[in-house]
């Protein structure tokens, strides 16, 4: 046991080191989001947000710390008392600090984003509509591609899978022109209506699952005079809840993360989604207000991470499934 542990030591070291590398950018985002601006741009970087107080005339006063220098055998610090404009010099020993996250950064970032409530509402509306659209349409199509044996089915399915190779930028211009001709540019419609026309990737995923259900089940129902749509609705779908959940989750993520779609179809800032709103905020405030930018990023990232933690198992299963017979 001990021997095995020692033999595996290099592996563990590598894994822990790698895990830290993967985790640090996320932790750095959170750390920055909780700091006041003057503590974001420091060298060496600090991981924790602090508040500083200096003893002045026996009273603790909140201050901004400045450079420390040595004079007459003592360390001194230039500090700026909060709310004042002139710095004073105090003995460095009189300055103390304690950890204090600036939760107000989140509120300030939200206010600085101007239309945050609208961004959030638009994103949630889109997530809801696209999840409904995708689950309904791809379940129907996947059923047609797996549980009914019609002539030419497999050839059509190969065609469907082949369409997955077409990237959005390739069809972007005609899609834009199409939506413009029916007056949908500047509305949310181009972003959710297409999901009601089953996308190949989700069909593929659900089909994999539908195929695992024994044929006899459908045949028995057919003999009892059950119509195809009823078999789909009352027998197959209830058995496929986990797979439907996976498709719903993937679609939720895709909608939440989508950037290029909203970028080309949305014109009014009030119609923006969170992803687009975050980029808009960055293009206006980026480069200096790192604490607000990171706070806004946390707001966009956090829901996705929380959702992932609650649905980890179906998620991982779903991704694993995409690789099967790829």
């Amino acid at each position, binding site marked *: 046991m001990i021997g095995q542990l020692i033999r595996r030591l290099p592996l563990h070291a*590598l*894994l822990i080191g*790698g895990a830290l590398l*993967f*985790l640090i*950018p*996320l932790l*750095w*985002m959170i750390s920055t989001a909780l700091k006041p601006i003057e503590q974001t*741009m420091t*060298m060496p970087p600090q991981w924790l947000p602090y508040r500083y107080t200096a003893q002045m005339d026996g009273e603790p006063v909140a201050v901004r710390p400045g450079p420390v220098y040595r004079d007459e055998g003592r360390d001194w610090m230039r500090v700026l008392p909060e709310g004042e404009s002139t710095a004073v010099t105090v003995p460095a020993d009189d300055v103390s600090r304690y950890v204090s996250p600036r939760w107000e950064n989140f509120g300030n970032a939200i206010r600085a984003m101007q239309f945050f409530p609208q961004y959030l509402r638009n994103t949630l509306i889109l997530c809801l509509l696209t999840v409904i659209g995708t689950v309904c*349409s791809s379940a*129907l*199509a996947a059923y*047609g*591609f797996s549980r*009914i044996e019609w*002539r*030419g089915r497999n050839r*059509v399915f190969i065609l*469907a899978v082949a*369409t997955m*190779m*077409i990237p*959005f*930028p*390739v*069809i*972007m*211009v005609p*899609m*834009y022109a*199409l939506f413009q001709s029916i007056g949908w540019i500047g509305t949310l419609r181009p972003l959710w209506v*297409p999901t009601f*026309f*089953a996308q190949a990737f989700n069909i593929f995923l659900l089909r994999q699952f539908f195929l695992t259900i024994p044929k006899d089940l459908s045949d028995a129902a057919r003999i009892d005079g059950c119509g*195809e749509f009823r078999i*789909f609705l009352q027998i197959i779908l209830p058995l496929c809840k986990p797979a439907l959940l996976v498709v719903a989750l993937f679609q939720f*993520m895709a909608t*939440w*993360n989508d*950037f*290029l779609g909203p*970028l080309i179809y949305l014109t009014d800032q009030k119609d923006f989604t969170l992803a*687009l709103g*975050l*980029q808009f905020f960055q293009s206006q405030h980026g480069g200096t207000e790192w604490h607000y*930018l*990171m706070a*806004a*990023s946390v707001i*966009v*990232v956090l829901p*996705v991470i929380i959702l*992932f933690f609650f649905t980890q198992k179906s998620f*991982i299963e779903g*991704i*694993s499934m995409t*690789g099967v017979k*790829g």
Partner: protein
Amino acid sequence: MTRGERRTLFIGLAFISPWIMGFLLMTLYPVLATIYYSFCDYALLSEPIWIGTLNYRDMATDQVFWQSLSNTIYYAAIAIPVGLLVSFLIAVMLNQAFIARSAFRTIYFLPSMVPFVAVAMIWLWVFHGQFGLLNYALERIGLQGPNWLADERYTKPALIIMSIWSIGGAMVICLAALQDVPRQLYESAQLDGASFMRQLWHITVPMISPVLYFNLIMGIIGSLQLFVQPFIMFGSDGGPNRSALFYAVYLYENAFSYGNMGYACALAWVLFMLIVALTWVATRTTRKRIYYAGE
């Protein structure tokens, strides 16, 4: 066709009708329209005017097009193989027995859940030339970090590093395949005295080759259409000396900023052909080495 056959055909088509409509309206039509527009002078508010192969001839002499293409290929040529290798190695490590394995899996997977827009924001800050965490870490080990995002030599390496951070999806797919490799294969190899590396190369790689192939194809499709990160981090002009002007960004700019929709369609069509060609090459060169159980 018998009556029964015709009936099942009809029912089958009824079920897949959402896909058929989507295919006609949102795949077939736009692909054909892209081809047609690529031979036209087409600004959004005017009718397309047929100009023959002018867009394609323009492309041949368009320095910016060539630069965006070479940037994209440079990125893909490194990010795809490195990504494939790293995701495979991490998956192999995570497939070993050790403490808190599932926690490690979550940690390695987590960054791939972060929306691309936020990925760009986080790394803008990590790569910051003066206050960035990365350069501080490099300084600690005695290296002078470059000004990543402002130095034309480092913009693409920066994006490649970011792509490795988001490797989680490919890693999970690898991991799932690793778990399906029969243990007996390793046990008999061990009896024969095969080293860990030999087992990896002669058992693991062939056994999960379909999944490696899948990740390769996904890598090709994903890398060639990289858009969000370079667009946000370097803007539409592609950063210092256009060193991070990516193909999809240039395409977007032509379509929606310069109003050259026809030219953008020609670019789009070339991109699609490129993806098809690379996928074909990848398929041809790996076909004999991919092992499908049960065949």
